[in-house]
Structures are given as structure tokens and as C-alpha cells.
């Protein structure tokens, strides 16, 4: 195939055969929104449990430490697809979810299990990020706070955590980016995010390649600016550092 065929001969396996767009652009926009919502809600839901897990992991109490360690080990050592399947077919087999459409296209009964699985998975990774961030704060900071009479929790909340969170921002940004990508796995359970949309469009239009190329482009356009934006925020926050 001569190279100029790339644009003129719009076969079904052409990289840039976007002729499906007039018909399916709306579906992709919805897929884009679905993916964003899935990733952002999951990571937001993961932050608080992750912080809790990290603090438990740093606790002196062996039982507390062990529970957190077991959770992290379990979720980091099994594939997300397996976790998703177990949560969807297992946990949510017993929990009846209403068949409501959110914003007219997000089916609650599929979205919630997906979000729960992603959040549970992500919290294990974010917990380790937080733990490393907390440990990276100079020991003298905790000592100075405690020497002023602040309690362990006040010292953690007022002195250590603000610095730890600043330390982990780049890693946290990576986690959001990872979640945007990982959430594509939810397509196997019929959640109409970007990947599912690409598969559906490829199936309906018989254009087998370009929908996935478009999907890749959309993922890139979410993740690249997102990581750049968080880098910029991090640079601004670093102004107060030593």
C-alpha cells in the first residue's frame, strides 16, 4: 500500500478512517465523560481509605498494621480484572442497585460496582504512596510539633500530612492517570466508557481500527495535560519549601 493511500483509500483497517464520526461522535463524547467520571470518582473515593490504610500501616499496633498490610498485599497482588469480576458478580450479586440512568447515559447498576472496584484497588496503591510520603517528612518535624505539646494526631494533621501530601503529588497524579487508563477494563462489564464505545463502534460500523485509534487519542488528551497541570500545581506549592 503506497503511503498516500493512508488518507485516500479509506478501507476498514485504515488508521484514520474516521468516517464513523458523524454518526458516533456523541457516543465517544459520552464515553469520554464516562471514563473521566469513573477515574476521578474512584481516586477521590480512594484517598480517604488510602490515608487510613497508610496511617494503620505506620501504627505500632501489630494487629492494625497487619490488617492494612494484608489489604494492600491482596489488592496489589491480584489483577484488577479479577477484582472487578469478583466485586461485580460476588459483592453486587447481593446488593440490589436501582436501574437508574445518571445524566441519561450512566447506568448506576454497572457504574457503582466499577467505581467500588477501582476505588478499592486504587486505595491499596495510594496507601503506599501516602506511607512513603509520610516517611519522607523529616523526623524532626514530628518531634518539633510534639515538643510544643501537640498530640500525635494534631502533629500528623497540622505538620506532617500537609508536607507529605505535597511530597506525593506527582505520584498521586500518576495514579489518576493510571486510573483513567485502567478504567478501560470496565468495558468488559459493559460500562459505556471510551474503550467500550470504541468496541461498539468498531462492531457496528465494521471499521475495525480507527475507533481504537480515536480511543487512544482521547486517552492521551486526558492524561497528558492532566499530568502537566499537576506538575504545575506542584511547582507552585513548592514555593514554601526549604
Amino acid at each position, binding site marked *: 500500500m503506497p503511503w498516500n493511500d493512508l488518507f485516500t483509500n479509506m478501507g476498514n483497517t485504515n488508521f484514520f478512517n474516521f468516517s464513523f464520526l458523524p454518526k458516533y461522535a456523541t457516543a465517544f463524547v459520552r464515553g469520554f465523560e464516562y471514563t473521566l467520571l469513573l477515574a476521578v470518582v474512584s481516586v477521590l473515593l480512594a484517598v480517604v481509605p488510602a490515608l487510613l490504610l497508610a496511617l494503620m500501616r505506620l501504627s505500632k499496633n501489630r494487629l492494625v498494621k497487619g490488617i492494612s498490610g494484608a489489604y494492600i498485599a491482596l489488592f496489589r497482588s491480584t489483577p484488577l480484572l479479577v477484582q472487578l469480576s469478583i466485586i461485580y458478580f460476588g459483592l453486587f450479586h447481593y446488593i440490589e442497585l436501582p436501574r437508574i440512568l445518571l445524566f441519561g447515559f450512566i447506568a448506576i447498576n454497572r457504574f457503582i460496582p466499577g467505581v467500588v472496584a477501582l476505588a478499592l484497588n486504587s486505595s491499596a496503591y495510594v496507601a503506599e504512596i501516602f506511607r512513603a510520603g509520610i516517611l519522607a517528612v*523529616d523526623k*524532626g*518535624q514530628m*518531634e*518539633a*510539633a*510534639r*515538643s*510544643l*505539646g*501537640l*498530640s500525635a494526631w*494534631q502533629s500528623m494533621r*497540622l*505538620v506532617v500530612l*500537609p*508536607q507529605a501530601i*505535597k511530597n506525593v503529588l506527582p505520584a498521586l497524579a500518576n495514579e489518576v492517570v493510571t486510573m483513567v487508563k485502567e478504567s478501560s477494563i470496565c468495558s468488559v462489564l459493559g460500562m459505556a466508557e471510551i474503550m467500550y464505545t470504541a468496541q461498539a463502534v468498531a462492531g457496528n460500523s465494521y471499521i475495525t481500527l480507527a475507533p481504537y485509534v480515536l480511543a487512544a487519542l482521547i486517552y492521551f488528551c486526558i492524561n497528558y495535560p492532566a499530568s502537566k497541570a499537576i506538575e504545575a500545581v506542584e511547582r507552585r506549592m513548592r*514555593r*514554601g*519549601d*526549604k
Partner: protein
Amino acid sequence: MAISNDILIRVEHLTKSYNDGAVLALNDCNVEVRRGEVVAIIGPSGSGKSTLLRSLNLLETPTSGAVYFDGVNLADPSMNIDRHRQKMGMVFQHFNLFPHKTVLQNITMAPVNLKKKTPSQAQAQAMALLERIGLSDKANEYPNMLSGGQKQRIAIVRALAMEPEVMLFDEPTSALDPEMVGEVLDLMRSLAKDGMTMVVVTHEMGFAREVADRVVFMANGAILEQGTPSQIFDAPKDPRLRDFLAKVL
């Protein structure tokens, strides 16, 4: 600067060991600090000076022995140590200012969060303290904008904002460039003059001699000799103290 007979801190048989007793950091230390007194702790590095000082506010947990402060034993695990630490200011070698807070916030954080003062009271007090050390123009700067000497003076003021009954200094000038040692020692001198009870771990022999009411010499985790500066510096008895002074003076 009258020293009362009122004993503020009494350390009894304080021992601290690591690795199940394999390493003895503090070996049966006994020391008293009276209200208004300035006690300097000197000795070679690794002698346990800092460990002893940090045991006074339980930053180090002693293995055995007692630390009485205001009549209660802080080493008792059932003690609410936070309440007593509010009355014991501490100054560290590496300042340990909070880098994410401004100078003013560094000073007001503890008094406000421990409900000792309202935010406006704490702010007024902090500004008065900054005024005293000539750094009121730095109130809204972050610590990274300050020199080492300025950082340490602000760390001292941060501890003073809690209106402590005693100030503990852990080698406060050891991390400073030589030209900044003076300003920190001057501030400590003026605190001493105001009658503040102070325990100072230091390598500044001149300061110990001039400002301290009593000097404690430590080596290998034990207190080998204590007395007035002239007893310690002019008529040392312990051979290890003589050896130490020969090296540092």
C-alpha cells in the same frame, strides 16, 4: 535571676538502653534543675547529652528511672505527656521550623490549636516576640527565606509562645555558620537574664562558663561531674573531664 530552691525537674536513676541492653545510652543519671537555673550539659559527642535532654520531655522513652517535672513522673506511661510538654519548650539543632507555614503561623500554631489563645491573641503575642528579636518584618515569610541564625531565633520564639516553664536546648548553635552563633547565644543570654529555667546541651564552652549556673559533664552515658562553671572549668576533678577540657579549650 534568683534561683529558688524549688526543684522543677528531678531526674532519678535514668537509664536508656538499646538492643535489649546491649547499648547503654544513659547509665543511671541523676540530676536536678531548680526554677530559674541555667544548666549546661557538656561532654564529648556520643556521651548521651542529647539523649538525656530529650528524655526530659520524653522524646526519648527511658528504659528505667524517673523524670519528675512539677512533681509528677513523666516517665510513667499513664501520664498525659502532651499536657506537660506544653510547659517545656524545646529548641533543636536543625531548627525544625515548619516549612509549609509562615513565620507567624509557625509561632501561633501550637497556642491556637491547643486553645491556649485565640488567633488574635496569639498573633499579637507572636508579633511582640518577633519585635523583641528584631524580625517582625519576617512575619509573613516562609522559613526557607531566612538565614540559619534567624531560623533558630524564630524556633526559640516559637517555643516561648507556649509560655513554658523551662526551655530545653539541644545543641542550638551546632548547625549554624560561625557568624550566626552570636545572635542566637545573645537571645539565650537575654532569656537567662529574664529568669527562664534553661537546660542547654552545648559545645560552646564560653557560653556555658558565662551563662550557666551549673555545668554537668557527661561521658559514655553517665554524669561524671557537675558543679558551678568555675568548679568545672577551673578545678576539674574527673580525669576524663580534664582530658575533655584540654581538647576543647
